[in-house]
């Protein structure tokens, strides 16, 4: 139920970003961009078990008046950011986690595709479909 889902590469450039177009997408892009700072802060703080699953899910990065931003980072420092609308029924943490898990799985599938060069924009239809499914719920 996200309004915006973004996949950020290790170098902090977006590999994939998709928003519900009802609202200005630019706004979401900006939100995601600013959330990256929070992500960095969180992952840099955790020096220990970096591979800890718990740490993959960063949780609520920061809430704004309209929406909440959740973060998730993979072992390869690829970040997933989900922006959900606060007006929606507040999603349970588990739901957010499951969304991230699905994203991660889809992302892995994309990575497995030999035709995908890491660093390229993600243009996989399968990935798109999964993301759309998650966003459709949100709307």
């Amino acid at each position: 139920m996200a309004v915006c889902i973004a996949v950020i590469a290790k170098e902090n450039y977006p590999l994939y970003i998709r928003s519900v177009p009802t609202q200005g997408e630019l706004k979401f892009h900006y939100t995601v961009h600013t959330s990256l700072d929070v992500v960095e802060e969180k992952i840099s703080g955790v020096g220990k078990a970096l591979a800890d699953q718990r740490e993959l899910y960063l949780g609520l990065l920061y809430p704004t008046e309209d929406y909440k931003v959740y973060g998730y980072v993979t072992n390869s420092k690829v970040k997933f950011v989900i922006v959900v609308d606060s007006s929606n029924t507040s999603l349970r943490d588990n739901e957010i986690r499951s969304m991230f898990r699905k994203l991660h799985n889809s992302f892995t599938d994309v990575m497995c595709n030999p035709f995908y060069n890491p660093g390229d924009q993600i243009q996989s239809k399968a990935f798109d479909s999964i993301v759309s499914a998650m966003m459709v719920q949100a709307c």
Partner: protein
Amino acid sequence: MESLTLSDVEQKYYSELFLSCDVDNAKKVASNGKVLDLFRSAQLSTEVVHQITELCGATRLGHFGRSQFYIALKLIALAQSGLPLRVESLNSVRDLPLPRFVMGKNDQESRHAVMYADTENQGPYSGVIPRPPARVQGKKVSAHEMIQPCVPTVDPQPDTTSPVVSPHQSPPTSPHAWRKHKRQASGGNVERQASVPGVVWPPFREAQPAPVTGDGMWSAHSPPPVQESWVSFTDTPPSSTLPMHPSSAQPESTTVRTTNENQRQGSGYDDPWKITDEQRQYYINQFKTIQADLTGLIPGSAAKEFFTKSKLPILELSHIWELSDFDKDGALTLDEFCAAFHLVVARKNGYDLPEKLPESLMPKLIDLDDSAGVPEPAPEVGFSASPVEDTPNKSPSMPSLNQTWPELNQNNEQWETFSERSSSSQTLTQFDSNIAPADPDTAIVHPVPIRMTPSKIHMQEMELKRTGSDHTHPTSPLMVKPPELPDETKLAATIKYPSATVGDGYSSSDSFSSDQEPISSAVNRQRSQSGASPEGLKVVAPPPPPPRPNASHSRSSSLDMNRTFAAVPAAGSQQAGVVAFPPAVPPRPLPTQTSMPHGHRSVEGDALPAHTSTSPQLMPEQPNFADFSQFQAFAVDPPADDGEKSDSGQAERCAEGAEMMRTVKNEVHPEERTAATVNSAKVSTPLAPPPKPVRRRLKSEDELRPDTEDLPQKSNVIATVLATQPSIPRSIGKDKKAIQASIRRNKETNTVLARLNSELQQQLKDLLEERISLEVQLEQLRPFSHL
């Protein structure tokens, strides 16, 4: 001429044409009349027409039978495509466009032909394109059909031109294709073709926009967008025919292409995604070039290179990969490869890629699905190759599964070994409960592994009992760590641990017993599961006899334990305590004991002999003898020492007792004194005693044996005792005996405890006496108090 293989489109188209020609329903068309008109409308030179008629055999027959007609049509298509007219080419040209007939019907055909040409040879046929001037509607259908043939659809079109990236095969053997097509057409697509002809022919005759209907029909067919376009990457967009409808001639090539594509997509004869035999064979050959082993996988990088050669955009290739890599492992099995290849071919031919993998292209993930996985072509298609291919597909698809099986087997074997060793009682339990996580065996386990031979299980239980009765459950399969039989040393170690708490020798043993209990229960569970094990075995887990310090004593380990204990004689003092716990084995080897006691006790010092002397009282409990004697000896010393020594003594006693118990298993109680010696002896011969216990009942000699063995080492008494006890030979393993042995052990344990109790009470008495004496002295010293 070989049979003619026609694609669905072709078949439909041809059948329509035939029906339209066969106005008389004579199932044959006269060489004159409509057929000739039709042929002429194909805009071929007369000579060509004659050649065609000759090739198809109509000349010989004097008329066009269905097969001849089809062959002729195919030849027309060939001619229109610019291919040489040869019989062989009939079947070899996969993407042969449908023959175009100028008059109405021809439009589509020619369009198709054009398109096919384009797709097939990347344009070589383009020359033919302009052909369809009058293309009018109706042809759409036919065009579609024509396209179909190009598309390697169900019909086993000759794959010659197919393979996408790979070298085109020899020119199609059209005649053959014709024949085959004819046959097949008659067989399968007749219906479809019937419909088509209906649509096509009218236009042909009347040059009417029948095609509209045809189109409609076609549209109806178009479910699966992509027919396997014949491999050749040159694919004439089937759908193009649709748009052609309106008749424009020029944009035909493009429109034709599009219509072809549309039609192609639309044509849903059967599963347009089915892979024909030729195609599949081609794919397999290609697969081999990359990966010789048909059951192996093609790594992603290799596949990437391969498919990049098809010159499709990376994005599409990426999509194809996503569709075809079914198991998402980054590699392609044979099935996946064929699917990918097929998709590439289709895409090259203009078909749009589906959003999800068509059923017929689904790789067979497991052998079981072979039949399902292999795209079953339409009935008419003789997928002879598929079964063969299925098999190889199976294997690759199931590599993981296959791998797991051997694992399983190994595990099973492990199971068996465990069971045999008996030390794995724990393992057994773990397996059963499936709680044992890490253990691979457990995970796999299922009845098989657990199902140990009853005897084995029984033996284990017997050992359990024995061990229980012995100082510890040395053998306790329960206590043995599952996975490792070799853990006997471990067991010894574990045994030692508890023994550390000398004083707690018994208590530690208690802990063991407690451990054993759960284990035994687990064992029971296992046993129950194994089913084979006799019920009695379950019982085995009988109340874990008094805590046996040597919990880890597995059956097999018990033997080892003996050795271990033997090796750790002195150290075992405390340990021995623990180990020795096993209820004092009745002084089995009395005779030997008597002789040995001193010898053995030497290690212990005089205490032992004293013990031995005092042991008589403890006769019933051999271990106690040793303990007792030690205790008494210590008692002489300051009481303070008693505790310590008693501990050690107890340890020794325990050890001895253990030994004794082992040896004594039987009713040989009277040999108390010898018990100690026996213990020592047992220690010395770790191996000997263990086997004995079980056999006790059987033979009395066994008892004696240990006695003699006791002589050698006293120091190792404890260790040996422990060792021996654990090593109760389960070889005998009979339920009854096991039970009885366990009973004996329990009794022995009881006796040991009783002895301990008595000793402690004695100590208490002594202490009280001392206290009284001290008080008296005090009073004496303080006479004033009285005052």
